[in-house]
């Protein structure tokens, strides 16, 4: 069993109201020095078989066509290293 993580973030040029709301709230809560916040999604996929290039290619395809909306979002796919949380 292996874990693959897909991170999906709004493209930088797209308005991110969620991230902005968090950013505006942080100084009010006493957390300063944070100049920008973007909020995105994180998917953790557990794979049955080995994470070889073929498996990763399929996950990239799933991310492209389904997990992310590439009209407004970018994504990255990576294998989570053993023991990483």
């Amino acid at each position, binding site marked *: 069993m292996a874990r693959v993580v897909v991170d999906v973030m709004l493209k930088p040029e797209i308005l991110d109201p969620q991230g902005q709301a*968090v950013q505006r709230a942080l100084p009010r809560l006493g957390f300063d020095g944070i100049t920008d916040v973007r909020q995105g999604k994180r998917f953790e996929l557990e794979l049955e078989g080995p994470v070889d290039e073929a498996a990763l290619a399929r996950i990239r395809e799933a991310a492209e066509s389904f997990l992310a909306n590439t009209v407004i979002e970018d994504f990255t796919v990576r294998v989570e290293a053993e023991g990483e949380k």
Partner: protein
Amino acid sequence: MTIRVGVVTFPGSLDDHDARRAVRIAGAEPIALWHKDKNLQQVDAVVLPGGFSYGDYLRCGAISRFSPVMESVIEQAQAGLPVLGICNGFQILCESHLLPGALTRNDHLHFICRDQKLRIENTSTAWTSDFEPGQEITVPLKNGEGGFVADERTLDMLEAEGRVIARYLDLNPNGSRRDIAGISNAAGNVVGLMPHPEHAVEPLTGPTTEGLPFFTSILKRLVNA
């Protein structure tokens, strides 16, 4: 004497006007409270209304819980001030840890608006004493994140202490654990409820008027106090 019930407006509150109307129909005086204001104007009770405060952007209620008004609400609720949180208000109460558990995304992932049947499970809280024990009512429900969750121990504790104040009947609209629609704190002065009793106070605009006892309960309790 007139009972004064404060209704807080957060940025993004939507049902604040409706909550004030319900308070008025119940016979109390609604007082508008502003989120930036710590002063609760000596109200006798507080309603945290429904809506999408701060857009519900981080988590529902997560940002509102840090507003100045909540400092006072939290402090006074702990001292016994009756507080009712409806929908977004319930979410704010959980985020504030005045109530246990959390409200999560509906299990079907959609916003849902429907006339919902409930059973009132506890009539000894500040906000439910005007109901008959076991009374079944229908009031509107509308939310996207209304699934009540808590760990098993907390759920057992809520059941054992009679703190589940309302349960969904016929259909569980959002995947709430144990069909929970509303709960109270241990003292019974703080109540959180996912459905909207303030939309069931007039025959013309609501499915029933069965939401009204939530607001008349508080009157009786305060008058008798």
